């Protein structure tokens, strides 16, 4: 009996070391290499622009449409609850604060992970499976500098812009539903929002969050692609892992950042 328990513990421990600690160490070393080799992606800025196009511009439609709908739903739900307490003018505050502080960075990050992160992983994984990365090495081109770093920086630059667009679209959606559809007073909608939302506390903290999520998603995406087993199965597994891991990372990081930023004076 005792022997079985120790065996089980040993199996769990070795699984832990092989699958988690080892991967984390490799991922950190990989991030360091990416940062060291990222000179090329700024010297040949066109490489990074190309990745901003694929990660950022092509995610615009989904980000704008979801932002609009999230804002409109917030407008409807917020009005329903606020009207019970006779303070429906505070709708602007509710919509803008929840978007700028939480929903903008988090939902934009989740959409970005599934729209752009999975594409980055699949692309790098397939390049590895078809031995394009090894071919580059043969030609003395560092695949980390030429392939990985531009994708990483493209994601890091795109993410804050997408989150800001998401929040702006959401505020517009809340305005459409609250003021145009339901008929909350337009003046108090904007003025209450402006007196409640603080630039340093809310807007800057939201931008910091979106930068952190951008780094996390891009890092996970390029790492999973680079570490994927060079088979069809391996690439598909890596793509799934990118979406799952980065979604979990976004939610966990969001809790940590919120706890650090908004502890209430």
């Amino acid at each position, binding site marked *: 009996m005792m022997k079985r328990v120790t065996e089980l513990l040993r199996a769990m421990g070795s699984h832990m070391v092989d699958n988690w600690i080892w991967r984390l160490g490799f991922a950190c070393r990989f991030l360091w290499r990416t940062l060291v080799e990222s000179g090329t992606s700024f010297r040949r800025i066109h490489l990074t622009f190309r990745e901003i196009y694929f990660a*950022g511009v092509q995610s615009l439609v989904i980000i704008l449409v979801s932002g609009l709908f999230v804002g409109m739903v917030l407008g409807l739900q917020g009005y329903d609850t606020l009207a019970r307490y006779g303070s429906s003018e505070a709708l602007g505050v509710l919509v803008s604060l929840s978007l700028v502080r939480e929903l903008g960075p988090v939902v934009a990050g989740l959409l970005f992970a599934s729209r752009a992160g999975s594409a980055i992983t699949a692309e790098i994984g397939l390049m590895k499976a078809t031995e394009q990365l090894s071919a580059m090495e043969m030609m003395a081109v560092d695949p980390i500098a030429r392939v990985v770093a531009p994708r990483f920086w493209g994601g890091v630059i795109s993410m804050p812009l997408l989150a800001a667009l998401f929040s702006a679209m959401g*505020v517009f959606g809340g305005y459409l539903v609250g003021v145009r559809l339901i008929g909350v007073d337009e003046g108090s909608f904007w003025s209450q929002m402006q*007196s409640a939302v603080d630039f340093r506390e809310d807007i800057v903290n939201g931008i910091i969050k979106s930068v952190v999520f951008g780094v996390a998603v891009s890092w996970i995406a390029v790492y999973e692609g680079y570490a994927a087993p060079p088979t069809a199965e391996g690439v598909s597994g890596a793509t799934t892992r990118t979406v799952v891991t980065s979604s979990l990372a976004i939610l966990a990081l969001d809790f940590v950042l919120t706890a650090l930023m908004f502890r209430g004076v």
Partner: protein
Amino acid sequence: MMTRKELDLWVGIFAVAGIGAMVFLSLKVANLASFSSADSYQIKAKFDNIGGLKVRAAVKSAGVVVGRVSEVRFDNESFEAVVTLNLDSRYQFPKDSSAKILTSGLLGEQYIGLSPGGDSANLKGGDSLKLTQSAVVLENLISQFLYSKAAEGDAKK
């Protein structure tokens, strides 16, 4: 495949839209443009009890926002709260103006109400207000009410 020029154009549009959204959020949503601290002057006011007054609460006179609370401190010599008010320098008040801590609505947030006095000299930066009225603490109000009720009851017997 897309040409290099077209691709750059799209990235440019994306960057302009993203930065535009950030500017919209800072100016229209957070109203960064108004109330810069450059054209304001500071005065101090001492209160026995500030209730739930917070930093950045509004300072209103006749219902119009004329400034914000910039600091709340406890004075360890007079055992009073010292509140620093940042007033917009467009608005000038007589030297004997008084400050009250008021509440907007029944459960709303607290703000400072400035009532102008009759002095011919105006307040300058660094001055302090002589006349102040503390926040109304609901518990004190209830206990006063209960005491007066009890006293009425005793008097009837």
